């Protein structure tokens, strides 16, 4: 593959040029979440010639993802392929010499720190709790990161840099997210594409050191109602912020408070995590529950129990569909997996 030709149009673009393209090819970006946002962003970065991509995701491909998660196919959904793995396969079809590391599992502080050093972290997550953890990890290691989120036809984005401006915690004023409820308004693909496009553009500016071009605002839009907004948020910077203030404590890195059972927004499912000292074996579980076993691959197995579906991952997590809530999910997990 002739890389001179491959990236020629991008190199011709005045903002990137030969030196910018070289910087892109030398950079390492971590994308957390390989759902709609993360998979699109990963594709754009790989196509742009990013040097190394790390992609972290805890989920597997389902049919309802295909309307907007553009890297995935019906075959991935039928095989319960973990999103990170399906993404990697497709991304290597797109650019065979790309360097892509994947993690099928939860992005926790230890996992994330293991992926460092990196030039940039990009958010493709589905929950605020993990975003605050990314915020703290990024600030602690002085790495920029780009928040992005969307629902319905609405989306927003904000770029956090360690050098200046408020961080995400400053903007959210540290309010705990326990009250976070799932949005049930669905989502259309163009809203995702809009957010990903702004995140990738900011990423290109950061990676090519075009710092003057950074947007510098909290930005939102609604592609259906045609509203958009851009707010300078400098005045929200808090000198006492525990993440970016004068004496940071990075509270979100103390991950122990993380819930053991968690409703997955937009998935109609609950994720249950194993107790810290619990050993989970896919083989043993498959043997013990042969009559419920409906699918297995190298990353996970699927049990159909009454009208519920329990997807058990190698790391001991289970995503459980068809339960009424976290309590029922937890009890089903205890009965069939243990703990």
């Amino acid at each position, binding site marked *: 593959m002739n890389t001179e030709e491959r990236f020629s149009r991008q190199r011709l673009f005045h903002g990137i040029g030969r030196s910018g393209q070289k910087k892109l090819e030398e950079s390492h970006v971590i994308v957390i979440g390989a759902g709609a946002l993360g998979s699109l962003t990963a594709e754009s970065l790989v196509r742009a010639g990013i040097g190394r991509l790390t992609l972290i995701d805890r989920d597997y491909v389902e049919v309802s993802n295909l309307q907007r998660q553009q890297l995935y196919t019906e075959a991935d959904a039928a095989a319960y392929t973990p999103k990170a793995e399906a993404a990697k396969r497709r991304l290597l079809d797109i650019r065979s010499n790309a360097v892509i590391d994947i993690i099928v599992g939860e992005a926790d502080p230890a996992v994330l720190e293991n992926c460092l050093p990196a030039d940039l972290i990009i958010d*493709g997550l589905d929950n605020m709790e993990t975003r605050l953890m990314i915020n703290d990890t990024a600030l602690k290691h002085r790495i920029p990161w780009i928040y992005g*989120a969307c629902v319905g036809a609405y989306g927003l984005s904000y770029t956090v840099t360690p050098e200046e401006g408020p961080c995400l915690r400053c903007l959210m004023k540290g*309010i705990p997210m326990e009250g976070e409820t799932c949005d049930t308004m669905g989502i259309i693909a163009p809203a995702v594409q809009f957010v990903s496009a702004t995140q990738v553009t900011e990423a290109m500016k950061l990676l090519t050191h075009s710092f003057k071009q950074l947007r510098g605002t909290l930005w939102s839009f609604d592609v259906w109602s045609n*509203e958009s907004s851009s707010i300078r948020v400098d005045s929200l910077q808090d000198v006492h912020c525990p993440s970016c203030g004068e004496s940071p404590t990075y509270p979100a890195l103390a991950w122990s408070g993380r819930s053991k059972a968690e409703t997955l927004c937009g998935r109609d499912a609950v994720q249950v995590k194993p107790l810290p000292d619990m050993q989970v074996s896919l083989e043993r579980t498959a043997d013990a529950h042969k009559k419920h076993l409906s699918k297995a691959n190298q990353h996970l197995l699927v049990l159909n129990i009454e009208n519920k579906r329990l997807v058990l991952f190698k790391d001991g997590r289970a995503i459980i569909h068809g339960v009424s809530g976290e309590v029922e999910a937890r009890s089903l997990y205890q009965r069939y997996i243990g703990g």
Partner: protein
Amino acid sequence: MQITLNGQIQNIENSQTVAELLEELQVAHKKTVVERNGIIVMEELHKEEGLKDGDRIEIIHFVGGG
């Protein structure tokens, strides 16, 4: 009263303050950043900050999806 909300001219019937506007727009329960005529209105002042005809209001609410 007529205001410009996120770039769109809108008639606001039931809101006299920023807090009431957030209720009317059904984003009061979300984390928001509000700007009135170019200046951010801190959350603790949402109840006191009155609205006037012709105001330019920007409201961004946070969501978690992706």
